[in-house]
């Protein structure tokens, strides 16, 4: 039995740009701050820290993240690495697992900064080894010095595809195609032109992918991946005027050994859902995300604040600005005299994020049409599209119903992988509104954890423990 209990002013869940800036702001205001992050080193996605330090094409970004982490530690923030939060109650109490040990926090206020994960819609062949998310390809190359494959196709929608294409090319991959669903880059380039303050950043993004310009296919989607026990070929199709794949405008790419596909990101809302925090739905903000007051980061639950991608996907700059605002508000809640943060900086950063969102067109309709009856929609439980369609015919109308009927969404990932695809599929084939389809209900524990760790964590959290 091993459990650590910490009583403190503020607990931050997630150590990306949002969580780190919240922690720094709260600690500077005088609060005792504990930050929990799942990964080996803090930084989250944007500020991920390779063991080798700031080298390679992303060195500026890595170095900036390193400085933020160092500043937070210097201000007194305690960072718990490899700490996965699996439970939470609005008392508030936060339960985490660190290896085989339990860590329980009883803070006065909480900042949720759990970020987002890649959003992937199912298609025939998407479970084959070698088919991964762009985020997985990025981590392999950037953190682990491993190529996802030698001959790589990137596909999906959003600026992240360009980021990863540039990084993989620099790492030595042959990037065969970048299949971007948006019809053309015109809206993106025009949008960047209207934001001179971001030109330097845009240049650093576009320069590494410029040599790949001829490899881009705009207005197209991957319709299938094929191979025996490994992806070998990828079929793409142009999107027609009706927004659906035009089967006559197909191309098959051969000799592929990795396909990285993602259509933006989905906010990671399981932990705050356990706290009872209200959510909103906006497909272009990643789907379900936490409802907050932008001026303070306050969620619908008193004492629980949030910042960053978990409140709607917008990128690193808004996450940094919103993190400061939420950290200060949490400190005020815990009784410290703290300022309010720069709401105008947040508004400017969100403005650019909105431009980016509008410049890209996720082909939701087309994606909902890709699965065939035998295509697996829920990777954990191996539930196929035919089974989901049958459950709908029997009366299942939302994520909770489909889960009860079919087990789709009941596996260890708790619907984080399949929720997007299930919603799209039922929107397209049965006319269900993805907002009304709802989010997979969170259950405790939010991650698979040994029972002994759960028991230790709960015992440590009891009053007088």
């Amino acid at each position: 039995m091993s459990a650590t209990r910490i009583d403190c002013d503020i607990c931050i869940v997630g150590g990306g740009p949002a969580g780190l800036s919240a922690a720094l702001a709260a600690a500077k205001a005088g609060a005792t701050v504990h930050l929990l992050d799942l990964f080996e080193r803090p930084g989250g996605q944007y500020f991920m820290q390779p063991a080798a330090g700031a080298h390679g094409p992303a060195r500026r970004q890595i170095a900036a993240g390193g400085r933020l982490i160092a500043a937070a530690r210097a201000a007194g923030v305690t960072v718990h690495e490899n700490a996965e939060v699996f439970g939470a109650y609005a008392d508030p109490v936060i339960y985490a697992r660190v290896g085989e040990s339990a860590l329980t926090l009883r803070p006065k206020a909480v900042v949720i900064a759990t970020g987002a994960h890649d959003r992937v819609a199912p298609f025939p062949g998407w479970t084959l080894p070698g088919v991964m998310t762009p985020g997985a390809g990025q981590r392999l190359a950037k953190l682990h010095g491993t190529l996802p494959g030698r001959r790589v196709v990137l596909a999906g929608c959003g600026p992240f595809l360009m980021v990863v294409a540039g990084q993989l090319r620099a790492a030595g991959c042959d990037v065969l195609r970048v299949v971007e669903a948006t019809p053309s880059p015109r809206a993106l380039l025009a949008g960047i032109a209207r934001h001179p303050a971001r030109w330097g950043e845009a240049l650093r993004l576009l320069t590494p992918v410029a040599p790949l310009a001829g490899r881009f296919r705009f207005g197209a989607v991957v319709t299938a991946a094929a191979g025996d026990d490994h992806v070998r070929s990828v079929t793409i199709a142009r999107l027609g005027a009706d927004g659906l794949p035009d089967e006559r405008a197909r191309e098959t790419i051969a000799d592929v050994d990795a396909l990285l596909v993602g259509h933006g990101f989905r906010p990671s809302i399981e932990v705050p859902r356990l706290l009872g925090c209200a959510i909103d739905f906006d497909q272009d903000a990643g789907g379900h995300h936490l409802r907050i007051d932008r001026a303070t980061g306050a969620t619908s639950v008193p004492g629980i604040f949030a910042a960053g991608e978990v409140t709607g996907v917008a990128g690193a700059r808004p996450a940094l600005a919103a993190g400061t605002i939420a950290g200060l508000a949490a400190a005020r809640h815990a009784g410290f005299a703290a300022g309010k943060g720069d709401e105008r900086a947040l508004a400017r950063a969100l403005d650019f994020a909105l431009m980016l969102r509008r410049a890209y067109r996720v082909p939701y309709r087309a994606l909902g049409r890709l699965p065939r009856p035998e295509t697996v929609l829920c990777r954990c439980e191996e539930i196929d599209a035919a089974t989901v369609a049958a459950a709908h015919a029997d009366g299942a109308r939302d994520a909770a119903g489909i889960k009860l009927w079919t087990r789709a969404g009941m596996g260890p990932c708790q619907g984080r992988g399949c929720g997007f695809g299930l919603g799209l599929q039922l929107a397209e084939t049965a006319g269900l509104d993805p907002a009304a389809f709802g989010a997979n209900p969170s259950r405790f524990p939010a991650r698979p954890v040994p029972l002994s760790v759960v028991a230790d964590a709960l015992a440590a959290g009891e009053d007088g423990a």
Partner: protein
Amino acid sequence: MSDITIDGETVAATAGDNLGALLHRLGDARLRATLSGAPRGLFCGMGTCFDCVVLVDGKPARACLTAIRPGMVVERQGGQP
């Protein structure tokens, strides 16, 4: 270099390196098979999807979140319930 065991075979590995990345290289992206026998590899690479769950020293663990320790015993099958 430090030795670890993967499915009964000794493999030279570097302590602290990522187990998921090692299995990705060794298996040419193939990592395990599902209950139905379908092959799977890394998918999310960041602890979200659980496609990479293997047994590490007899306990289920996501390979993509696991740092290699000397003497570690890895079984690719059996990590999923």
